[in-house]
């Protein structure tokens, strides 16, 4: 029998029972939509995470005392950075960074303090760690530390699109080991950094950088930034550093973070896709159910077809053609439906991602990222293929039953 004839007969039969056909197809639409929306969101999430993580300088390692507070056992010292640089191979630069506790930044004449992260760094060494992020919008790297220079992150100097600080302005910063004793120290803005975006181990946009010699009153060192000669060595170097400190320090290696993020995403994606596959299996059982009923109802018709010369495989093809059409139509509607659903979900998830207590002055795009669902051709074709396969698979049993019917029995059927 010609394919065209089989398909047109199947189509006629489906048209005859519009409600039943639509409901059966709806099952497939929902199943496919579930898989497509979850997978495209997953892909979107993966690509935004990957974009963020790949912005990390993969050749920079951060070393911190074990236990994030650092208050307890091991405390890093200024000397540690030097010994890392001198004793561990493949290390290009190692520099220590101090966090100013409870920093309060007062701008020119203002008595309103704003809270930003304040880091005490060696400017030259720190620039070597992040050369790509040390582009100045205004000013430059201070040549001398004479008049207490300070470098402002992009957001520190800009708020709601307006410039709030300029090179040469005076900024007051309280530096103390424990509040609220000390008085603010005056700093002169030496440079304002260009926006560097998310994706470094620290967010430079919301930092102010002060010379390390201004923070000597703060005991210990909070972090050591290490730049390795080749990004491939990062993991080995991190291991060497940990063993040098008898595992009393922890290290942050961006490439490991990237790998972990990816494997978690893989797992989550597969997990969610399997859950949504259940919807498709349920739809498949729906097809099996409806087709079994349909075969029973059409027993006599099957008998007639066999009497006029239809072979078992003709009958099988006719019923499988119906299942295929249902799967195909279901998938064709399911893919856009799933993509639409993913858009809505992606939008909703993004707008809920504003962290509690976040600075409302910072526009949302800068603190969270949007999940844009990704609908790859592979996903589209895969979904259509999957929809058809499930339909044919579940349609097989009833179709087989129809094909194997004894013509005489079938003809007698009332």
């Amino acid at each position, binding site marked *: *029998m010609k394919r065209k004839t089989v398909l047109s007969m199947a189509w006629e039969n489906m048209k005859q029972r519009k409600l039943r056909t639509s409901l059966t197809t709806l099952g497939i639409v929902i199943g496919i939509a579930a898989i497509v929306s979850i997978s495209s969101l997953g892909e979107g999430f993966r690509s935004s995470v990957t974009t963020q993580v790949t912005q990390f300088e993969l050749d920079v390692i951060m070393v911190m005392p074990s236990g994030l507070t650092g208050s307890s056992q091991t405390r890093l010292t200024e000397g540690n950075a030097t010994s890392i640089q001198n004793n561990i191979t493949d290390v290009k630069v190692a520099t220590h960074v101090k966090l100013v506790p409870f920093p309060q930044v007062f701008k020119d004449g203002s008595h309103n303090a704003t809270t930003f992260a304040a880091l005490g760094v060696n400017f030259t060494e720190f620039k070597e760690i992040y050369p790509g992020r040390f582009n100045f919008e205004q000013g430059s790297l201070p040549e001398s530390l004479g008049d207490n220079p300070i470098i402002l992150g992009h957001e520190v100097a800009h708020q709601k699109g307006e410039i709030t600080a300029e090179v040469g302005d005076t900024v007051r910063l309280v530096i103390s080991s424990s509040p609220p004793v000390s008085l603010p120290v005056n700093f002169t803005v030496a440079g304002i950094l260009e926006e560097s975006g998310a994706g470094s181990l620290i967010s430079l946009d919301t930092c102010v950088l002060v010379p390390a010699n201004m923070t000597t009153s703060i005991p210990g060192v909070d972090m050591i930034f290490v730049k390795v000669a080749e990004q491939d060595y990062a993991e080995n170097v991190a291991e060497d550093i940990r063993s040098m400190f008898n595992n009393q320090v922890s290290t942050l290696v961006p490439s490991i973070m990237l790998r972990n993020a990816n494997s978690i995403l893989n797992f989550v994606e597969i997990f969610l896709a399997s859950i949504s596959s259940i919807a498709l299996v349920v739809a498949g059982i729906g097809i099996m159910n409806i087709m079994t009923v349909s075969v029973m109802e059409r027993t006599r018709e099957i008998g007639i077809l066999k009497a006029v010369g239809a072979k078992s495989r003709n009958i099988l093809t006719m019923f499988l053609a119906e299942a295929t059409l249902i799967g195909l139509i279901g998938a064709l509607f399911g893919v856009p439906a799933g993509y639409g659903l993913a858009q809505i979900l992606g939008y909703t998830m993004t707008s809920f991602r504003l962290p509690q207590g976040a600075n409302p002055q910072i526009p949302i795009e800068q603190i969270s990222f949007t999940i844009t669902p990704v609908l790859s051709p592979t996903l589209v074709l895969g979904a259509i293929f999957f929809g058809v396969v499930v339909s044919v698979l579940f349609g097989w049993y009833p179709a087989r039953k129809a094909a194997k019917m004894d013509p005489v029995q079938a003809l007698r059927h009332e």
Partner: protein
Amino acid sequence: MEDLLEARGIKKAYKMGKVMVPALRGVSFKAAKGEFIVVLGPSGSGKSTLMHILGALDRPDEGNVFIDGMDLSALSDDELAEVRLRKIGFVFQFFNLLPRFTAFKNVEIPLALADFSDKESYERAKEVLRLVGLEDRMNHRPSELSGGEQQRVAIARALVNSPSIILADEPTGNLDTTTGWEIVQLMRRLSEEKKQTFVIVTHDPALAEVADRMILLKDGLIEGIKVRGERL
């Protein structure tokens, strides 16, 4: 005359609950090309079973059916289907048309199964519908046709692949006398024009009048054969 169809010692029994009930107990006869045969018998005489076995729809427990010298018992299910498609046309008491399809589509089904081209299929279906006098009703569905018209569609469907044998099971059983008679006349005319062999099973003795030969079936056995003009 050459034998087109031969039944040789056909036996068939059905299981009713736990007992086997014989339907045919050894039926043998031959039909020549172009012959018009009526098998007459009361209900329960095994007429329909014989029809199904002659028509390659069912297999006998014992005995053989030969069509054009070919032994049907040697054929697979698919090959039997092929025989039904090419060599046999069925006409049933309850017409057995597909209710969702128009008269034309119903007639076209065997052509579609036999892989005719669209053009040839259209012409053939139209031609047989003209032959049974339904060319102006061919776009109606069975529910829009009278009983007589539906049976004409069924006859057209049986003829469309130009089979050598047409088997009819109580073709008039569901029609009033006049219409039934018209259908019988139509079949008789077609058999003469097309030189096709007709085997009609019925319980209606009136049909025997048009037969070349009448076979009397009772309790699964042939009780007598009457050639046209003879008395039984």
